[in-house]
């Protein structure tokens, strides 16, 4: 079996989730009731038998560190291999690298020392369930230098504007990488590459003063190198804005969307917490809602997502909202189209109503 190693490169992911990314990077944003965004990427790697994963983090990575620990939750707490979060702590005065190449350069030992012949490089904003062993197979069959993963979306959404798009010929070879707003071939910010070729690209890019491995080292070489495209056929969500976060979260209330992401064959792992089962009072009325453990529910909740330990008081009404860990919604409060970050308190009788296309976001630990 071919060994694959993983790199999760967060360097060029911008923190565009407003209040949700004031104090944490996008990869650490809570998602789907009990996960963080990065859980999906790490779990895909684990489920593809990747045993060695490096995370390139630049800023606001503290909560990511707390969450990932040594990787035990993903069975990646190993003596050989394992999960490494690599914050920018560089002290080599002779280092010439720039941009995300600083990460590749300063962590080149990860690439050089791994026993794996192939490396998957991925971001954290494309939520999906994918087996990288299938991508590798396509890569090997194609004989390409690099294989990129893309999704043919049915309908373009605003979040796709920021993504790269691919022009692909009949044989699956990438002819162009661009930002054409009409193209539906959305590049999912994941590629697989031979270890030695990646090592070469890193050195070559640094020697030429480049600052972005994918743009300069891969896209920039396009006529000269063979890029193969792998189509991801399952469900897919690109989350790079509050609006896309909100819409894609609520998509999980749809059973088939939910089941495609959470299936027994490739479970999504996360750091587990000790929480009692959720308690539904006599007075509760909960409909079409995802609920994590540790909640105490006495009010009315519909079309919403409740994270761990949320309390909803009697007479409170919550609709179309996402309520994160340990929020407390007191009696008779009304929330509609709202995202509450962790540890918020909404006083008895308050009403907060956002717009369906622009939810009202409350930063963590706010009392209103």
């Amino acid at each position, binding site marked *: 079996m071919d060994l694959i190693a993983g790199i999760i490169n967060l360097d060029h992911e911008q923190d565009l989730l407003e209040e949700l990314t004031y104090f944490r990077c996008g990869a650490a944003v809570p998602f*789907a*009731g*009990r996960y963080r965004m990065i859980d999906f990427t790490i779990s895909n790697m684990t489920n593809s038998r990747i045993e060695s994963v490096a995370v390139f983090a630049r800023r606001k990575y503290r909560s990511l560190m707390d969450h990932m620990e040594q990787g035990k939750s993903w069975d990646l707490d190993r003596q050989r291999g394992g999960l490494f979060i690599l914050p920018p702590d560089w002290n080599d005065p002779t280092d010439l690298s720039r941009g995300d190449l600083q990460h590749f350069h300063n962590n080149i030992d990860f690439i050089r020392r791994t026993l794996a012949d192939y490396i998957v490089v991925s971001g954290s904003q494309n939520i999906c369930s994918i087996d990288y062993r299938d991508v590798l197979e396509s890569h090997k069959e194609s004989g390409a230098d690099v294989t990129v993963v893309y999704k043919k979306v049915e309908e373009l959404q605003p979040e796709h504007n920021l993504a790269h798009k691919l022009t692909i010929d009949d044989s699956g070879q990438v002819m162009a990488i661009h930002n054409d707003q009409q193209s539906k071939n959305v590049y999912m910010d994941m590629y697989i590459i031979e270890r030695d070729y990646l090592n070469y690209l890193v050195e070559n890019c640094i020697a030429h003063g480049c600052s972005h491995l994918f743009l300069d080292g891969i896209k920039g070489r396009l006529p000269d190198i063979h890029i193969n495209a792998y189509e991801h056929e399952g469900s897919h969500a690109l989350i790079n804005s509050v609006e896309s976060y909100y819409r894609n979260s609520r998509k999980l*209330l749809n*059973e088939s969307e*939910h089941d495609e992401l*959470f299936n027994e064959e490739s*479970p*999504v*792992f*996360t750091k*587990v*917490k*000790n*929480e*009692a*089962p*959720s*308690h*539904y*009072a*006599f007075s*509760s*009325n*909960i*409909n*079409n*809602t*995802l*609920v*994590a*453990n*540790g909640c*105490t529910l006495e009010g009315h909740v*519909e079309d919403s*997502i*409740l994270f761990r330990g949320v309390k909803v008081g009697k007479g409170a009404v919550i609709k179309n909202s996402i309520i994160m860990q340990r929020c407390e919604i007191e009696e008779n409060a009304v929330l509609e189209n709202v995202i509450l970050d962790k540890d918020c308190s909404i006083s008895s009788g308050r009403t907060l109503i956002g717009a369906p296309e622009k939810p009202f976001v409350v930063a963590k630990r706010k009392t209103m």
Partner: protein
Amino acid sequence: MKNKECVAMLLAGGQGTRLKSLTKKIAKPAVYFGGKYRIIDFPLSNCTNSGIDTVGVLTQYEPLILNNYIGIGSSWDLDRSFGGVSVLPPYMQADGGGWYSGTANAIYRNMEFLDQYNPEHVLILSGDHIYKMDYNHMLEYHIAAEADATISVLEVPWSEASRFGIMNTNDEGRITEFDEKPEFPLSNLASMGVYIFKWDVLKRYLMEDEEKEDSSHDFGKDIIPALLNDNKKLNAYTFDGYWKDVGTVDSLWEANMDLLKEEPGLNLSDNKWRIYSKNPNQPAQYIASSATVRNALINEGCRIYGTVDTSVIFYGVQVAQGSVIKDSVIMPNVKIGKNVKIHRAIISEGSVIEDNSVVGDSSPDSQITLVAEEGSVMASSYATIIK
């Protein structure tokens, strides 16, 4: 050399036959409780929360699940470099060895384990009870009283006292007599099966007991009477929280229902006294538009499309549309089809209940129905069940 002030020994070898087929393939301490837990989570969490970091778990009957569940104890923060949890199955020795023939014999055969830690006191626990207790308070009382042994007791209603092992005490709390299920009880202080002994005293009595051919090698029947007989100082420590023996199907059901009372005696969400357990990896629970959920505990991985009323639902349970679950306990990964009625029942792990089945009897005094692993229905039954 380092030593430990107090080491706990948890008797987890019992088969729990009164729990019927719930314990066919697992030891009683591994039986599920409260939507998420196994019985053994309670004594183990009590140890952690009481600062007792060295626990021997004595197993004998169907230990595979218990072994896997306990692992090295990390779920309870009991994975420690010196101490922590050790699973202690029966074993063979150069000069024989063998099965544990009684609770006292089980400790006797693990004297070497205890001597590694050179403890002053040994806390004996059983894996059959649901309660939250600070053993450290009891230990402080035991040390202050300079007792040879301290037995934790609970005031039970006088009418029920004859079902328990009753401690008769003098004014200072010293035990004068131990009455096993007395016809005419002189006290209503029932033993909880939680003992603290001075280790050197206990060790001597264990060795002496081992020599007695007619002994059943049991704490209640042999060791405690022998200590009383020798006029050793035995004290009663009165505990007054929630405590429940979950040794029968009915009492297991009742203990689960107790969690759904207006003011439950047992708070599972107290951050200062967490009940730790191994957490399954499951997505958030989903309550559909068609669902009605009232007065229930529900765990992650569940999908509820029907009605759940006054019930405890473990992880990974599916309840399809039109079904009604009332006054019941549904254990992990049970699949319940459409238009099923379940009343006053315990459905055991992994059962599949076909569409339109009817399980249990809704009349308030009826026996609790147990649907067990291989599809058998124990009491009243109109169910069709497929595993």
